[in-house]
């Protein structure tokens, strides 16, 4: 049972990591139409 919850926890952490990667690419592009705002998690 513990293993199941550990796997689930790791998966949740990986979601935040993958989102940061995606948002970083958008911010580096500076393209406003793609959603670049100058802030990693800010959304317009």
């Amino acid at each position: 049972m513990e293993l199941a919850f550990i796997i689930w926890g790791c998966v949740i952490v990986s979601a935040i990591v993958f989102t940061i990667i995606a948002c970083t690419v958008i911010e580096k592009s500076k393209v406003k139409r793609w959603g670049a705002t100058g802030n990693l998690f800010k959304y317009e």
Partner: protein
Amino acid sequence: MSERAVIYTLIFALYIGFMIWSVLKSLRQVESFSDFTTGGHRMGLILGVGTSVATWVSVASVMGVPGYLYRTGAAAIIGWVGGWFFCTAMQPLLAYKIRMPKVPMRTFPEFMRLRYEPGAERSQLQIIVALLMFVGYFIFTHLQVVGFGIVFNTITGIPYEYAIFGFLLILALTCSGGFWSVAASDTINSCLILGGLIVGAGAVLNATGGVGNIMEAIAATTAPVNEGGEPLPPGIMMTAAGSFGVGALFSIFLSNSFGSLVAPHWITRFMAPKNAKAAALQMMWTLIVLIPIFCCLITIGLGAKTLMPSLPVGKTTDYIMPLIMDSYAPPIVAAITLVALLAASVSTANSMLLNCSTSLFYDVYVALSGNKILNQAQATRRLRVCVFLLGVVAVISAIKPPLLLAMGFTYVYGAFGSIFFWAVILGVYSKKMNRQATYVTILVGLCTYLYGRITGNFTNPMLMSATFSLVALLITLKLTPPPPLEAYEAFFKADVSEPTMRTIRRIRHEEFSPEDMKPAEILGEPAKL
């Protein structure tokens, strides 16, 4: 009529009233065919999260997952909860790429056409993909109707075979407004599902005496799934692989994670947000909202084994959730939870039917009719009729259900992963992926998966088909020329060339406008004219 029945009817009537209000409100939003299919590519974060949560939380999760938890214990957390969460975790990486084009595609087959057959007058690939999608989504819709029937039967006492026809009443309501209607009712349904499951889990914790008692009971239980069945080995529900075995559980995990990652309804969802960042953030917030929902489902599924060690003969584990609520929760709590289950089936069925009908009408019928400019009002009207007719067929097919809900989803996700995984992932991340390699990967993936499922020769059909199709596509890429610029440019550059934009407009059955070539604004730089 008993007090419980009166409360069930009252809460159900309130739910229907709420749905009617939301649909009438959202009907004003429908303007074009794009609005009907993808909300006009202008969806904000809150609505996007609401609709994504409601699509994720289908009968496979709210009824199938507690059912499998009841059947096998911890293994269901790895196979289904872990698998689906891993899919959602990876989705931001795919979502922002799909939403990059200034003018995105409207359906998954249209995306495949742009990426792999942009110059074709009539795209065979678009039609093949649409037909494959149609089969998968029809099975999904069928499973939602089965779930609806089980819950509606519990609420009203109407026999299952008749209860499923109640689905058509709600379907007629929600599908009348297309994507915005589906999205609005999905968001309401998401709130209902979350609220219903929280009170439901509270009722189960109260009835069992808490988490400690549940854990003790499932560690010791040997009670068979159905009364009079074979007893479970002691402690099996606490082991990671449960009654599946490691190989079979890994197969389920892969289908639910990598298979559902490229499921066409998710690709369509990624086209709806107003920009690429909204698409990525939408999936992260969706996952965060899903955490409490699945905590409740795990509590209910495992708690059910404590409260009702074996199911009555003739009832599948899909019935465990409504049975537990009906037997152990106070009437008002049970009513809210059961309506939440209905909401889950309706919201996912809406979404699936919209995908199913769009693929059939737009990607087959309209694509076959050539590259004429689309009559928006006529297309939307015909699509509505198509949605309802397919709903009727789905209801008729659900009279004798052949599959358990969660496993039915896993099979279809496995098939989608086997067929589309490389075409989608390499389509947005590699400029080299071409038309020939896509045909090869679809063919090899489909044949290997079907062979594995039908013969049972592979423990992990999706892994085998993904491996075979990768090898086949790499060989094909070596032997064939690279794709034209129009095929991939929009997924890599903010400003595309005029031929690419003209191609996108032609595929969307729209007129090219000089406005389309306006350069993208760059942060910190003055706007270019």
